């Protein structure tokens, strides 16, 4: 034990650092620190907004996407982000808080985005996720759907799909399912 300690002292002296230890007071966690950094490095276009129900808790927030082009233009889509203490080892958990008609988002709000699951890596940051989310509204992907019906509509008849999107965004019913009104 003593040997270990003299090693430590030598090292500290060499670095001339001011080693410190706070007692009892909690340390900023690795996940918090990483999110603080990620938030600072975000590039949010005019179509995106983030809100923090509790500004002291940066691990839980809401991202609102308001597309200014594409089929979902004029809508306002809210996603809850929940980052756990195992971030960035674990990806953030993202859910759409509204019921919307989208091939890659199911009626429960689950989102199919590769980097939220199978392709997540700790080197990815929140910006990558947000860019991916934005892309879902510009280019809904029919080939790997979560909402099969919506995907089928998109594949078979793009114009009808567009009409369905408008109907659903207005709070209307598509294929027997009533959607939330999400117009801005």
């Amino acid at each position, binding site marked *: 034990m003593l040997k270990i300690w003299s090693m*430590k002292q030598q090292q500290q002296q060499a670095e001339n650092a001011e080693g410190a*230890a*706070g007692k009892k007071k909690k340390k900023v966690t690795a996940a*918090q620190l990483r999110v603080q950094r990620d938030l600072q490095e975000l590039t*949010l276009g005019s179509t995106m907004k983030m809100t923090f129900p509790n500004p002291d808790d940066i691990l839980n927030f809401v991202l609102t996407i308001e597309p200014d082009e594409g089929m979902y233009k004029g809508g306002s889509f809210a996603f809850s982000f929940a980052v756990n203490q195992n971030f960035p080892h674990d990806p953030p958990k993202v859910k759409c808080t509204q019921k919307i008609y989208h091939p890659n988002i*199911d009626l429960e709000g*689950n989102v199919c985005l590769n980097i939220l699951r199978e392709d997540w890596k*700790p080197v990815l940051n929140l910006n990558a996720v947000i860019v991916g989310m934005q892309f879902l509204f510009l280019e809904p992907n029919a080939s790997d759907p979560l909402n099969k019906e919506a995907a089928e509509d998109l594949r078979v008849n793009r114009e009808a799909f567009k009409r369905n999107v408008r109907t659903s965004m207005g709070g209307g019913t598509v294929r027997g399912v009533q959607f939330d009104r999400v117009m801005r």
Partner: protein
Amino acid sequence: MVAIDQTLRWKHLYNVLTRSGPFSDEDWVPGPETISTLESSKILVIGAGGLGCEILKNLALSGFKDIHVIDMDTIDISNLNRQFLFRQVDIGKPKAEVAAAFVERRVKGVKITPYVGKIQDKDEDYYMQFKIIVCGLDSIEARRWINSTLVGMADFENPESLKPLIDGGTEGFKGQARVILPTLSSCIECQLDMHAPRPAVPLCTIATIPRQPQHCIEWAHQIAWQEQRKDDAFDSDDLEHIGWIYNAALERGKQFHISGVTFQMTQGVVKNIIPAIASTNAVIAAATTSEALKIATSCNPYLENYMMYAGEEGVYTYTFEAEKKPDCPVCGNLARRMTVDPNMTLEAFIETLGERPEAQLKKPSMRTEEKTLYQRFPPQLEEQTRPNLKLKLGDLIADGQEIAVSDPAYTIDFRYRLDFS
């Protein structure tokens, strides 16, 4: 009670504590003092499961007399194939208590203090009382927590604050043991990429184009349950719940002509079960406690710093020194001490950061564990935290509290401990 002849009872152990070996450090003085150092070393075991049971036994038979153990779990039938301190009648009881009582009963003179709960329940004062901490956990998150706590506690002005962390982990026939000297050697966070992430299947595959029995189970677990039993909180230990998932997965398999869904597989997928056997645990647990004995007594050099074991094909071990990462978010940026005037506003404090020698932080964002002090981006959060700029430090933080600072100009972050002048 009959007096025990300690020298006779501990004959073999005392031999290595009272005689030098060819590899012992030349400055080491073997003898009674080493023995009493060992016996007075308070040691903490985190986890009383497969590794923990072995670790407790090994420490008790390595001469440690004051052992503490933390575990929040209760005993399950599937533990009995390896957690040898537990019996059928113990099912449902807290692991830490049953394990501690068993070893105390078997090895006379050892005191084992159990705590049933989470490691996060305890603060630095608690961890400060131990000389060494041995971990036998299956959760990466818990490992990261204790690691960063111990790194944060290390204070070079106080030798007692350095707590060697010895960590073991197993999976099937494989495992690893490692020694971490917080702030001095590679820490758990530095080695995080050695934990392979759990392979995940795209959600859309599960939702629309399942091909494997596992996809059917994931569908039942992640989609069907949400749709059909939203109001029941899913409990993977509830046989009725697992049974429901199993049936739903079977049905889905039938629909897509996918065979191979079994109850065992359902449990495995839903609970993310990792195979575990007594023998691998014995190897890894004893590797960790052997290091504990060496570190506590200096009777032989300790492991620097990582040993992996794989037993599928013969006996394979690989021992190497994992490297410390200079940009490690936990041990790469230790808190520096800074004395500040509590009457200074946050805004003025931020200006002083721009003049720090180690880094001129021009656009910092910063927080404490509880509070976002100032966050420059995104705009909504900037707006919410802007009022803090006008507040005095003394109103925002406590004396001696740690803040963490990020600045886009630097790839690493900084931690400061602010002492009020």
